[in-house]
Each structure stands twice: as C-alpha cells, then as structure tokens.
C-alpha cells in the first residue's frame, strides 16, 4: 500500500490519497492523470490493467486500487 501511495503522490501531488473516496467519479484525477497512473502502476507492480478495471469501482480510492492490484497480482 505504501508503494502505491508513493506512486500516486508522485503523479498528482497535493491530493489526499489516503482518505479520498471519489478520485475518478469526483474528477479529482482527470483522464491524463489516469493515463499516467496506469503507466506507473503497471511498471511498479508488473501488472497489466485492462479496460474492465478502468471504472470508479476500482479507481475511486487508493484502497480500491490496492485491492485491484492484489487481484491482478494473484
């Protein structure tokens, strides 16, 4: 989880990733941030994030992203 937060904070400094729960649906991260986050997460965790995961269900909070990463690493 710490590694994920590190990646997120580097992409979009100033966002409270620990507590935010509407990152995508609340447009806290825009489409360009999303592209960067995907690129960084895929490199950092050696995973491939398909279109089926690119929804608020998986990207609205760091916790949800972390659960997705674990599912993809499984």
């Amino acid at each position, binding site marked *: 989880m710490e590694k994920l937060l590190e990646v997120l904070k580097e992409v979009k400094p100033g966002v409270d990733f620990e507590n935010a729960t509407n990152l995508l649906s609340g447009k806290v991260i825009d489409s360009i941030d999303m*592209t960067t986050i995907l690129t960084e997460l895929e490199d950092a965790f050696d995973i491939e994030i398909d279109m089926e995961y690119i929804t608020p269900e998986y990207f609205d909070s760091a916790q949800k992203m972390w659960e997705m990463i674990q599912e993809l690493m499984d």
Partner: protein
Amino acid sequence: MTFIDFEFGIFLLLGVLLFYLCPVKHRWKILLLISLVFYAIAGVKYLPFIFVTSLSVWLGGRKMGQRLDRLEQELLRDNPDRKEKKARKEAAKKDCKKVMLGILVLNLAVLCVVKFTKFFIGPINHLLAVMGGSESFTAADIIVPLGISYYTFSALSYLLDVYWKRVSYEKNYFRFLLYLIYFPHILQGPIEHYGMLGQELKKELRFDYDRVCKGMQLMLYGYFKKLVIADRINTFITTAYGAYDSTAGSILLLAMFLDVVYIYADFSGCMDIARGVSQIFGVQIALNFDHPFSSRSITEFWRRWHMTMGGWFREYVYTPLSTSELVKNINKATRNKMPAQISRSLTTIIPVFVTWVLTGLWHGTGKTYVAWGLYYSVMIFLSVCFGEMLHDLTVRCHVKTETESYHLFQMIRTTCIFAGGRLLTRPGSLSLSWAILKRTIFHFSPTALFGKALFLQGLGKKELLVAAVCILIFGAVSIVQQRMSVRDLIARQNLPVRWGIYIASVVAVVILGVYGAGYDASAFVYMAY
C-alpha cells in the same frame, strides 16, 4: 409517426390501455409488441436492420458470456497456479475478443454504409455506367433505418460491457430486443446502457397514479418547448440565414443565439416527451440534459449536453484510446523529460481529436461535420491543456472566480463557443457559414435590432413577443429546476393553482403551438442522426 403527430396520441392511449389491462408479469411483452408496432409503422423495411443488429449482438454477448462463465468454473474447479491461471484467462480473453471484434465491425459497417452511401452515389452510378449497367441510384433509394445511430450505439455498449465484464449477458433475446427497440427512446435516444435500461425493463411495471401524472406533465412541458418555442423561432433563423446577404449583421447575430435556444428547446423538448412517455409505463430512461448552459467550461458543457452520447464516446472511444499502449508510451516518453504542460498536451492530443472527429461524423457526414468535430477538438484540447494555467493566471490577477459575475462570464463564454459550433453546421455548407459570419462582422448595423427589419424575419411583433415571453419562462423554469423539482413544487400548491397551471399549459401548447392551416410541424432535429 413521431411524438408530435396526432396519431401518436391515439397510439399512446391504446398502448397504455393495453399495457395496464395486461397482468404485471406479461407487461414487458406488451411493451415489446407496442415498440415493434411503432417501429413497423415508421417502415416495415427498417425491421430487418434492427433484427440483424439485435440478433448479432445478442448472440455475440451470449457466446462471450458463456465463455467467461466456463472460465470461472474451470478456475474454481482446478485451482491452477498463477501462471496457468493467467494463461487460461488470456485464452478466454482472446476468444471473446474475436467475437467482440467481428460483431463490432459488422454493426459499424452497417451503420457506415447506411449513413455514408448517399455521398458516394455519384461515383457508384459512374462505376455502374462504365460497367455497362443501365440502372442508377438516387438518395431516395437508400434505406436509413429509424434511429439506427441510437440503437447501434446502445447495442455496442452492451457488447463492450459484456466483453469488459461490466454486465452479465442477457439470456432472453426478446428482453434484449426490447432494450434496443423500446419506443420512447428509439427516435432520438437517449443512448442507453444495458445495465440501466435493461434492468429497468425487468422491474415489475405497476400502475402508479402520481408517476403517470408526472409523466404527462413532463410530456406537456416537452411539447411546449418543441411546438411553442423551437418551431416558432426556427422561422426567424431560417428567414434570416436564407437572405443573409440582405440582412443586417446584428439580426444575424440574434439568429445565431436564437439557434442555440432552438436546438436546446427542440432536443430537450423531445427528451422530455420521451421520458414522460416512459414514466407513464413506469420505466425510467437516462437523463440527456442537465442545464448545459450553466456550464463553466466547454468540457463541462459536453458532460451536461446530450449526456448519453458524450458519455458513450467518453467511455467507449476516449477512455480506451487514452489508456491504449500508444498513448501510454507517449506519456512515458514525455513525462519528466519535457515541461508538464507539453507532456499533458501530447498525451491527450490523439484521444481528443479522434473522439471529436468521430463525434462529428456521428452527427452527420460531409465537410461541415468534420469541421465541427475539429472545432470541438481544438476547444476541448485547449480547455484540457490550458484550463489549469488559465485558472492560475486569474488567481494571480486577483480575479475572484467564485463570484456570480465570473460564473455568468463563463456561462456566456461557453454559450458563444456552442453558438460558433452551430454556425458551422446549421447553414448547410462551410462557405455559407463563412459568408454569414463575414456579413455579421462587417455589416453589423446595430440599429436594425430596433427597427422594422427585426419584424421581417418571418415573425411579426406579436409572434416575437410570444417567443420572448416563452423563452423567459423556459429560462426561469431551468433556473428553478436547478434548485428543486418544478413538478413537485406545482404538486404542493392548492388545487385551483395546480389545475390553473395545468390548464394554462395545455391551452398555451394548443393555442401558441406553431400549427396553422396545412401546417406540418418540423421533425425533431436529432431524428436525422
């Protein structure tokens, strides 16, 4: 038959009676029957098209769904290691991708042939003549099925959602057919998601007096927008643009802004009628407008205007493109190596331009719609890339961005951008748009707005006064709607006030609606798409 035809009233009345006389569990079948009849009245020749789309997409969805279900069962049964699991998932994904791509291409090909053939009639006829054929085609020979752009997009959203495992596949073909052909949304949308409308149509559709009343009220307001406002001011715009070379620029400018009101009243009016009709049957369909002219930017505007189409392109074109390997590689290659603003611009340029040119082509073919797509590509691109920079600049200049006056400025700016887009498509050709723009700038003559010329644009003094009052009512209702439900507000009033409003509204539509001897109400603009 459209929503503004007298026959539609009779059709709806009979349909509602049949629907509520039928037992609840069979009501969806009646809806399917009514929708098929509605579609067949528009043209039996259109039916094969919608059957091809519905059958191919339903079969494809079923095949993919069954393959994914089988994979799940195998993984549960065998509990393979990570490597094996990944390999099996990839194999299933590959199988599904083949099915999805095949059906996607088939349906997009049908849509493109139907929409674009008329632009190739000349070369086709020439080719036939060269080959010795004696027959030739005209535009009238081409069958353009009713609502093809809308139902094809609704069908493809289902196909892609099943492929991306966002919805479960539908096992019953007739349920899926109803989702596509459901008559309130077949003419002009909204473009639906199976996860929403498909589930909505599976509910127990029971009679609810309040809901039926509210549906009728919404229909009435839709007719008011369409027949009293849109069709009335359309005359002014058509007359002004038709004789643009002898019309003052100030009047052309007024026509440009009236055109914005016209398209909004026409399209949102149709959506109100569609949603109202659907509410009578107990089915909630997607919202397509959310006070777009209160938007602070053009990107926000497109999240509030024709929301289901914008959402479709965002979800199924823009997002896949912006997360594609190509764009991710561009992002990777430029981030931290170039200034952030340039990296952001390069990351977004391909998805924005492709999405907006395709959106333009969805609306229509020809140069005007390509120009329209490029126009919005540039506007959205500038807004996405430089929006933050502009915000920083306003803060540095000590401009208060949260004040009402600044919001008003942003709303006017957004409206002007939209009016510019309309000017590209409404006159019919780019040269005409350019000529109108030149005339507006170089022969402005502001005094014409206060003289006789104003009343020579197809609407006399009284007609213009009616239009102005009705537009003000439309604007006032929009402002109130942002704070509360107008229908709930009316429902809370005492009986004489409530019924006074209802009767006045009906009388307004009947008396002020643009009819007249032999008058044929204009078709809804977005039906052409």
